[in-house]
């Protein structure tokens, strides 16, 4: 989580756009939007030539509001004190993004696909939801900076509790998830499959936190995550804004998958569970939390449902009653049931 220290400077920006418009806004120098703005400004020609929209969202009024600017409309940016940034390429999808992003010569015309997303509100009971929040607050000291493949990464900035799988709170949610599993999996277009594991991760996101566009698995290495389920919970009244989940459409180049610019945006509503196929580009949009208090964080429990290559009838899940390591007979061929 980012915290302002006495040494953090506030940069006064004066942004001039085509048409003579001018925007003046202060931005702390450690805000990721500052780097995004200048990076996008430098690369605006390249983005335009690829036909890509180039938008930057800047916080206003201490995070209570936001301003979205089309970077190709910017004529100049004045900064006081002056900003000297070591610019990097636009943040790409982390971890599992295919290395080559250049247009492929003679590539077939891509097919735009919109992934299915399942949204379930009131996923847990009233007291269960309250207890989840209380638990996260009690576990404050266990949160560590989030990583990508075990390392710090500029595309990810939030906090994580490791070794969360098999905790009581994980079991509570996983047990409920197993009841939903056939309905969710069918809605996402999956045939029934035996489960190997349901992996849980607890995250806290506070002011400035984000996780750039990525896939949880790309299928190119042994990773049997099939479905990702994100359960949102936080103290109410809500102490943050932003933090939307963006689920991107994909461009299918005959098997090679790339992220499209279009997306679905899902709000982080308390006690909501969002499920999508793990091999889907998604992003945690930056969060604004003016208080920066841990108690006002947006908490999430992410569960990944893993497919078993070798079905195990003895495997138990949730509270331990449910054997989901093989495909139940009743679930076989479920896609034919209409």
């Amino acid at each position, binding site marked *: 989580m980012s915290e302002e220290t006495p040494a953090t400077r506030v940069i006064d920006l004066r942004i001039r756009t085509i048409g003579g418009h001018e925007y003046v806004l202060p931005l702390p120098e450690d805000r990721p939007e500052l780097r995004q703005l200048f990076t996008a400004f430098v690369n605006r020609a390249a983005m335009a030539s690829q036909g890509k929209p180039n938008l930057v969202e800047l916080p206003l009024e201490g995070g209570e509001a936001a301003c979205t600017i089309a970077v190709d409309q910017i004529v100049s940016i004045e900064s006081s004190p002056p900003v000297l940034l070591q610019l990097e390429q636009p943040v790409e999808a982390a971890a599992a993004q295919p290395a080559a992003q250049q247009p492929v010569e003679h590539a077939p015309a891509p097919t735009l696909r919109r992934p299915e997303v399942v949204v379930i509100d009131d996923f847990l009971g*009233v*007291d269960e939801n309250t207890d989840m929040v209380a638990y996260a607050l009690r576990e404050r000291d266990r949160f560590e900076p989030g990583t990508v493949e075990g390392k710090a990464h500029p595309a990810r900035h939030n906090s994580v509790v490791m070794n969360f799988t098999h905790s009581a709170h994980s079991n509570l949610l996983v047990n*409920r998830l197993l009841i939903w599993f056939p309905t969710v999996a069918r809605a996402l277009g999956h045939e029934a499959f035996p489960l190997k594991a349901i992996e849980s991760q607890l995250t806290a996101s506070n002011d400035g936190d984000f996780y750039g566009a990525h896939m949880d698995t790309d299928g190119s290495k042994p990773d049997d995550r099939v479905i990702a389920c994100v359960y949102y919970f936080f103290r109410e009244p809500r102490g943050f804004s932003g933090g939307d989940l963006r689920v991107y459409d994909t461009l299918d180049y005959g098997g090679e998958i790339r992220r499209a610019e279009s997306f679905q945006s899902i709000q982080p509503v308390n006690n909501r569970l969002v499920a999508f196929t793990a091999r889907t580009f998604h992003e945690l949009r930056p969060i604004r939390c003016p208080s920066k208090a841990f108690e006002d964080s947006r908490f999430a429990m992410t569960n990944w449902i893993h497919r078993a290559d070798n079905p195990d009838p003895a495997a138990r899940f949730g509270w331990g*009653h*449910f054997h989901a390591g093989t495909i139940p*007979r009743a679930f076989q*061929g479920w896609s034919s049931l209409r």
Partner: protein
Amino acid sequence: MIYTVFTRPSDPSRQWHADLLESSWQRAQQPGELVRLTPTAAGGSAPAHDKATVVPTLAWNPHPYTGDQYEGYDMPASLLEWLFRTGVEGTVLILDSRSILTKAITDEVEPGTAVATPWPEFPSGEGPFGLAMSYKFVECYCVNRTLALAPVQPPLLMHSSDLRKIAPRWAELTALIRADGQDTHGKPADADRLAYCIAAAEYRVRHDARALGTDTSDESTDAPVIGYRRPVESPRGEIVWDDHTYEPWSEVYPEKAAPGAGRVLLSHLNEMATRIQSGADLAAKRPLRKGGVREARVLDETQLEVPGYRDFVTLNASAAAIWDLCDGERNLAGIVEELERRFDAPTETLRDAVRSTARELVAAGAIELEESV
């Protein structure tokens, strides 16, 4: 909008339960839609009905994850699936499949409040949720064990938005109670009812207790729903009818039953049996072909292309003969008469064939049945 919903797996030997309920629903002039949730095995087919909307759902009996055989798993799991897929909004009247409607229930409920039948045998005690101590194990799976439970059971009315929330928890708790609980007969037979009460309390759904239903032992006939899980007895306590041994649609004798709900049930059953035996049910229905249905003959089969349906409907020779006679003029009894002239087959066989084919054609969207006066 009121959705009257019941769950009945696809089992030809028990189809009569669903037919009886459907007939009673129509006779009581219950408003809204009748929905049959049909747990169906993969590869299986769901039955057809004249009026009820049939929704095939996954079968949760035996339990997919525990293997436990218990019919109480199907209702919450099927409700979850139906509500998720269809997104219906309105009041849901949940009935046991082994029951009939004698009067219409027209109350609609708002989110947050349900109406349900009192449960006299609710296992109250000093344990969690005010349950008997034999249910202490539920503490392991419930965060707030001080909630007051409404001692209620189906038939019940609940808003779809509340049902959508509680159905998964209801399904989950049913399995947990069955897994960890024990009563005098082994696994708790009332696990599903208890699970419902807990789930409803956890989601803060309040209940108004009202006698929507009763059973065949009740001397009163006020309740709109009569369940027949208990046999019907004579005034001297002898069993005069039992659904387990009943042969549809044989004659029954209401006058032998003790006055009350049991006698009312048998009267309904007898009326329906008489209509079916005489073919009067067929005379009351006239099949009308729906617009846009196209027909093709392929060798000895007739195929129908129905607008809005993905697959062709293939009719064998007998079904095709019946389809050909759906001319908008004849009722189903008239079709039977014509078939009797053409074919040497028992009348009862022809009637059954016409009934089942008409239902299949309704389910396929090829015809609708107009109720004639």
